[in-house]
């Protein structure tokens, strides 16, 4: 089972490497959205410092949605997905591996880029670290929950817009806890509580979401 998961993750990473532009688009989107806010709300340093966690988190949610639309679409179009559904490998493991690969390609770069964006917002060093840590715990949850939406909207007209309508409300707890942890830390209260809850959310999502994704894929491709 571990073998299958590893093979799938490697395959998806290799595919992403061959199509670097797709990955870069979502990342650039993240950077551009985060850079637009100071232009919109003004460059007053105190204001920027206070909105930074929320803005960067919201940008991460949107970037995650943007890349999710293609999570199963290519495999669906060329028939690979059908083989995965028919194959002997348990579908839960397959989709968990796909979600993990999605996080490695689209989530991890956001985590690494976030401290850089935090500089733009004049966030002090420890808080930037906190932000990256909260994103590291939160973005896998986004990939897992988003994969349910991606599986449900597979092959539908206007799937991308529909996907955001379905998934964004479900992202609320991750956003609240993620941005909240940085805000608590900046208020001097320590954001460990929120980070632990975020970790709990990750554990629950990792345990439960693969079943929902597998069920949704079976429904969408029958």
């Amino acid at each position: 089972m571990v073998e299958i998961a590893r093979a799938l993750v490697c395959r998806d990473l290799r595919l992403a490497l061959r199509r670097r532009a797709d990955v870069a688009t979502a990342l650039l989107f993240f950077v551009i959205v985060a850079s637009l806010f100071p232009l919109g709300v003004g460059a007053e340093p105190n204001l920027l410092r206070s909105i930074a966690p929320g803005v960067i988190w919201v940008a991460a949610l949107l970037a995650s949605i943007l890349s999710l639309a293609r999570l199963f679409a290519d495999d669906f179009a060329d028939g690979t997905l059908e083989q995965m559904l028919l194959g002997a490998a348990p579908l839960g493991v397959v989709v968990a591996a796909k979600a993990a690969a999605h996080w490695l390609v689209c989530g991890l770069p956001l985590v690494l880029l976030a401290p850089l964006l935090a500089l733009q917002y004049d966030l002090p060093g420890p808080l930037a670290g906190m932000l990256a840590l909260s994103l590291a715990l939160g973005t896998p949850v986004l990939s897992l929950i988003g994969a349910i939406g991606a599986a449900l909207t597979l092959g539908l007209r206007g799937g991308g817009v529909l996907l955001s309508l379905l998934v964004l409300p479900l992202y609320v707890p991750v956003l609240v806890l993620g941005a909240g942890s940085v805000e608590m830390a900046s208020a001097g209260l320590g954001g460990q509580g929120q980070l632990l809850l975020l970790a709990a959310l990750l554990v629950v999502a990792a345990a439960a979401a693969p079943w929902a994704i597998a069920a949704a894929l079976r429904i969408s491709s029958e």
Partner: protein
Amino acid sequence: MKWFWYASPETFFPLAGTIARICAVAAAVFAVAGLYVGFFVAPTDAQQGEVYRIIFIHVPAAWMSMFLYVLMAAWAALGLALNTRLSAMMARALAPTGALFTFIALWTGSLWGRPTWGTFWVWDARLTSELILLFLYFGFMALQASIEDRRRSDRAGAVLAIVGAVNVPIIYYSVQWWNTLHQGASVSFSRAPSMAATMFTGMILMALAFWMYSIAVSLTRVRCMMREEK
């Protein structure tokens, strides 16, 4: 077991019609009684004056909005597990009514908030989670509307409703930790209600009226769906 006797659309169709008619009449009777108690019998509130009377619409609508989501998810889960057409139809029929009550709860809440809190909207925990509930209803309806194949549409909607139902408590608590201004619940099962008995009676009557209305409207909608499919 006669449980599945009414699971077939043919046998359920006439029964649904009868129940819908009875419930529609009951809804009208309960609404008239509830509004009478609310407007003429219940005393004026010591702090808020007459404006509090919006509670007779607001609180029952908020109850219904949450309860109908759970009910919708339960029907959807039943449809997914037992593969019964009727359960999926019930889930589909409940969604618009649930969204309507969520909207009414938000609307009356903001009208109530203006004179008492001085603002139409605050980013308070209950308001926010009610708003997200409205988005969840919209997501469910949008997903079902965009899938043409009826069977796939029902099953996809069911998965989304179940995922949403699992998420609702998490959303509720996350938003509650985030911010709260709304007063605590005035009514609970564990203790006596902290309000005058007539106010409580008015609220219960209105809640019953909304219940009856929901049953009547969703059963009528199910009947329409059955007609469409024939």
